[in-house]
């Protein structure tokens, strides 16, 4: 239901702002370090947007997308070093491979809902970490895997700039895909799954095929981001590539910005990504960044489960809520209110 609020101000204007920001940032960045931070933030933005294909549309929360990014990175690196593919061909083949691999993974994981799905997604990260650390004859194990740079002669700042634009392009592609899905019949089916999977099924939506398809699309974009990272950074280590933290950062970004909004994950990625870079400078290697991440995630879950964009647009939201939220959500909210009221009366 494209309503008034989803017109120019929701999509067009932010798109222009985003494109302009991507275009001018490299020339505004005062030094290569800031530029490289920009690349990292864009990497997060692509990951969070890719995550939002599953999380936003179907409501399935995956903490394992970090594993898909890691797979994309390692597949890219291995295709280049072992199969001697050209860099960007390696990247594309890697994304296709991860998408193909996402079919059996999704087949097992998407058979269960909610909590079990989250468990499976965490297990995915842990098992891949185990495999990539142990199987060192192929993956380099903890010594790491060095990926040759795609542009050998290029100086560092120029390298960052090129990758900034590559990531920017990928981000716009992911956003455009999400936007198209959002308006399609397919997207409608996915949102029906989010609201009430049983009812969607009984109304004839092929829920499993829909979930699997969107999971594969999400995996492909995630793998592309991971592969680009491998090409840009040039050095992969299982501990960082297959970390549960990566997945939790992605979820934090998407939730913070708002999962039902096209630009929510991007906004979240900018806020959290910049904060992460700041913590890295400020706290170095102390474990305090874990505490701050945990605290932030907790606060978002408790107080802003819909994300910043919907929370800030409170008055508009009130109008919109009447229009496009489902019956189930209203009753659930009512239920909660009733329950709270009842316990308060009692105590």
């Amino acid at each position, binding site marked *: 239901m494209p309503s008034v609020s989803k017109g120019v101000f929701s999509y067009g204007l932010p798109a222009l702002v985003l494109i302009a920001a991507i275009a001018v940032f490299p020339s505004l960045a005062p030094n290569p370090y800031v530029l490289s931070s920009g690349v990292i933030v864009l990497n997060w933005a692509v990951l969070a947007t890719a995550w939002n294909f599953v999380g936003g549309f179907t*409501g399935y*929360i995956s*903490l394992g997308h970090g594993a898909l990014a890691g797979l994309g990175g390692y597949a890219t690196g291995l295709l280049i070093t072992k199969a001697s593919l050209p860099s960007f061909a390696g990247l594309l083949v890697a994304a296709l491979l991860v998408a193909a691999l996402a079919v059996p993974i999704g*087949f*097992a*994981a998407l*058979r*269960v*809902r*909610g*909590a*079990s799905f*989250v*468990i*499976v997604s*965490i*297990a995915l990260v*842990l*098992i891949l970490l*185990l*495999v990539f*650390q*142990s199987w060192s004859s192929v993956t380099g194990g903890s010594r790491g895997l060095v990926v040759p740079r795609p542009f050998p002669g290029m100086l560092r700042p120029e390298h960052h700039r090129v990758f900034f634009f590559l990531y920017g392009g990928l981000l716009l592609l992911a956003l455009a895909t999400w936007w198209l899905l959002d308006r399609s019949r397919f997207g409608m089916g996915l949102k029906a799954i989010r609201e009430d999977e049983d009812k969607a099924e009984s109304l004839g939506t092929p829920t499993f095929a829909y979930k699997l398809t969107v999971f594969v699309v999400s995996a492909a974009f995630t793998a592309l981001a991971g592969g680009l990272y491998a090409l840009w950074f040039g050095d992969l280590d299982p501990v960082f590539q297959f970390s*549960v*933290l990566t997945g*939790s950062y992605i*979820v934090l970004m998407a*939730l913070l910005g708002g999962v039902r909004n096209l630009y929510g994950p991007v906004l979240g990625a900018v806020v959290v990504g910049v904060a992460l870079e700041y913590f890295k400078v400020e706290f170095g290697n*102390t*474990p*305090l*960044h*874990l*505490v*701050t*991440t*945990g*605290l*932030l*995630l*907790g606060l978002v*879950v*408790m107080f802003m*489960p819909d994300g910043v964009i919907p929370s800030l647009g409170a008055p508009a939201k009130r109008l919109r809520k009447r229009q496009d939220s489902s019956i*189930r*959500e209203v009753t*659930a*909210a009512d*239920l*909660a209110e009733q*329950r709270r009221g009842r*316990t308060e009366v009692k105590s």
Partner: protein
Amino acid sequence: MPSGALLFQSIILGLLLGGMYALLAAGLTLYFGIMRVVMIAHSAFLILAAYLAWWTNDRLGVDPLLSLVVTVPLFFGAGVLLQRGLLSRLRPATLTMMSVLITFAIALMIEGLLGYAFTGTQRRIRLGYGTASFELFGARVAVVKLIAFGLAAVSLAALYVLMKRTQFGWALRATIQHRDAARLVGIDTERTAGFGFGLGLATAAVGGTALSLDTTIYPSLHWHWIGPLMAIIVVGGLGSVPGAAAAALLLGLAQSLLQIPMGATWAQTVFYVALFATLAVRPQGFFGGRLAQRF
């Protein structure tokens, strides 16, 4: 083919390990039964208890088992607070998903604070009886492993008695089975759920102390535990305590036996193989679980 003695040794060790898994998985099934909550932070609390036991021993020079006197009530209280203060305030419609994230956030905070307080250095308790072992039909069994198993067995038995014989246990089981019906017969389900949560976390205090006896501990160790524990509760069928116990013993045994041909790291994968096999063949779990597929 490994020798009979080695095989027997592995079986004994596997059962001892399985007992520990069973105790910890019982906590996870309790949370899930009570509130449909998957508590990612369970193993973080486990490591926290292990650190407290180590600290007790290191600073005060007493037996780490004495720390139970403090950690069990402390963790019980933390569980009650956690349920009343955070989990019961989440929106019912998205409770399961959001509870995963909030407990995940708690796990991160615990890991970060442990790293801040005790640094990332690996710690180990040194005990007088730490290296003692005895022979049992040709198998060497370390005393600390047996103590850990004994702790697990005693707490599981206590949990069983509590659930079956006490009024609180009845109220808790009624709350798990049908919350509204339980409320109808006059059970204060909110209070019961809070205490149930405390009970679950108390099992983490016991488990962590048992763990600290013969394991090297470090702040990020909880990731190492959460995977197998999650696998166990899915294989056993979410929400089923007997199922979790059966799966825990079986998988602990399998891990221990597979260590002979595969080595310790690859043997770990048995949990994930079992997890994915369960989901592919029988998503509701192999042992009597009936809630899993929906949540």
